[in-house]
């Protein structure tokens, strides 16, 4: 078994007497593209930041490329790519100058890849970063995080401000990158269609707890919405993700008939998200 690129073990974090992360266990293996899904304030950003040692958990251990997240060596730092929710850092630079400086810190920088993406996303390298739109800044941040082909890529809502075409293209590049370089990618997003398109795995986080983590296909095949008349229905064979008066979202359904149920329906990722937070 390969060593996980990123591993969260029993992570707890409290902030202002509010539990932000609660007992998170998650491994990112090479080749995995994990889509982290959750409502605003669910703890996604905290989870991603803690992987980089920016936030120290109250309890538990986070290992990145085999090292503790808050004690990363220079060698491993060069193998991690990160795009924050709010792109910031090269104010006062032109795109070309910012890329030239950023590139100089990475010996494995793929200049062809950089040029390809600049052209594809129509970024003029003479433009000042201060004058870029939010979407263009995000594109540039993605180029800066991906052009040295990191082994682990952590992206906090990386394409939220991109137009649908740019989003699709970047998402497919992400997937290619993971396949080609055996990288692991953990990215958060609200856009379920993006996650469905590229993610190999889904991690669903609700109020700081990891509610669901598995391959996308497994989730598609085994998560069901069960409608029933009597609340006494026996669903003990499944993991209940959410239960209402006359319906429940269950996980682990393998196609068998559930006695007492009125209907057993499949759910798209978006439907699942809405049902769980409804």
């Amino acid at each position, binding site marked *: 078994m390969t060593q996980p690129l990123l591993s969260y073990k029993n992570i707890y974090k409290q902030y202002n007497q509010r539990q932000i992360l609660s007992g998170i266990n998650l491994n990112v293996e090479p080749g995995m593209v994990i889509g982290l899904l959750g409502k605003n304030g669910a703890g996604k950003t905290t989870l991603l930041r803690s992987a*980089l*040692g920016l936030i120290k958990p109250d309890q538990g251990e986070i290992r990145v490329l085999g090292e503790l997240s808050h004690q990363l060596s220079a060698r491993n730092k060069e193998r991690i790519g*990160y795009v924050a929710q709010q792109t*910031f850092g090269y104010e*006062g*630079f032109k795109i070309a*100058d910012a890329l030239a*400086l950023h590139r*100089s*810190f990475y010996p494995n920088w793929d200049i062809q890849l950089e040029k390809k993406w600049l052209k594809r996303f129509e970024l003029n390298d003479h433009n000042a970063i201060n004058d870029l739109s939010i979407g263009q800044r995000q594109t540039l941040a993605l180029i800066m995080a991906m052009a040295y082909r990191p082994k682990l890529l952590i992206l906090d809502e990386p394409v939220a401000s991109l137009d649908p075409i740019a989003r699709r293209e970047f998402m497919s590049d992400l997937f290619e990158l993971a396949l080609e370089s055996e990288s692991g990618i953990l990215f958060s997003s609200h856009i379920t269609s993006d996650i469905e398109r590229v993610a190999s795995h889904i991690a669903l986080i609700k109020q700081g707890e990891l509610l669901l983590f598995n391959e996308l296909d497994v989730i598609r095949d085994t998560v069901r919405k069960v409608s029933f008349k009597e609340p006494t229905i026996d669903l003990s064979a499944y993991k209940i993700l959410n239960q209402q008066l006359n319906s429940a979202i269950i996980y682990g359904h393998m196609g068998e008939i559930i006695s007492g149920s009125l209907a057993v329906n499949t759910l798209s990722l978006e439907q699942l998200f809405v049902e769980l937070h409804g």
Partner: protein
Amino acid sequence: MQISKRPWYQGIVNFWLNDVGCASYFVAAILISFLSLVTTSIENMITFMIMFSTICMYCAIAWQSIKMQATEWQFLVVGYREHVMFQGKVFIILSNFISILSIIIADNIHLLATLSLANIIGIVIWFINRSFSHLFTSVCYISFFIAVLASVLIEQLSIWLIPVNIVLLTAIYLFDNKFITSPYSWSPRSLTNYLNGLQSGWSPVPSSLFSNYGGSINKKLFPLSYFVGSGFSQYLILIILFCITGVIINLFYDVAEHVLFVLSLGLFTFVTLSLWSKIQKKNSWELLFTLPIFNSRENAKVALSHSILKLSLFVAALCFVTTFALNVTNHSLSILNVLSYTLACTGGVLLSFAIGNVFKNINFLSLFLCLAFGLNIGLTTYLLEHSSNLTTLITLGIYTVAMATMNRFTTLYL
């Protein structure tokens, strides 16, 4: 694939001159450093300049430290922080080198004590802001206050302070790790502190001060007040309060000249700060045009020009009333002096706003505002120290009208 060797100066212009927050301190530090070389014969001036330029340079580095704390990815980029901070250290050495040069020209060893004290104050600003970005404005202003007091009140710092300061400086440098364990670490509030600092610039006044009384002033001087924000009415109220206090004190002690000097200093500082805030808010024009009160872009520009004229009229009235009231007690100024001073202040305010209309680049704006500031202070001080005649008054009248016309004309460039 590429392996690059990075020169130490890569990105230097972008980091220090094109980042507006940093540039405001950096440009001031460089300008005053070089000015100190040519003003070595004026003892009070050179003491202040050495102190001010050195502290300003440390403020620029402290600003980069705040930016570092606001940048989430910086710790992942191995060598990035060291690269920026190395450039900062080079500038500190350069600033000290220029100061030492001016001390040699001035042939006054006591100034070395001033320089070493400035370095201590500066390094404290820098080191504190490596971890506590929210303290930037307050630490800077306390330090500038100490620096000004030290330059004004103490004629010459004693020579024995030189070795003491050097030992203290070395101790701070060597032992700071004991007190601040993780400098430059990302913190969630740093970006907010950075953006707040960018908006307020050099403004030391807390945003809540006089918030209940400023509304009507802001309304009357809209849209100028819209660009500057809460500081606009705050500064105007502070200046009015200062004038009233000055007039009262003048009833007991003869402080007329001091009050008028500080009034012109306060007015031009206020105008410079206002223009500084205005250039920071890039998107404000777009927001302004969307308001239903303006039919077009031109309409909004004309309204801005009118609000500047209203402010100038207010400045003229304030200067005239204050000068007149101060003169009632000791009659040190003639009516021609009173009117000349009033016109010089009004014309100076209009000149600064015309500069603000023309320059979009923060560095050019800073440079020309500094020059205008110097010109305005020089002119008003000259008028206070020399008696005026009718020719001076007429010339100043023409100057003021010309500045008002220029202000109206330059709104086209907005």
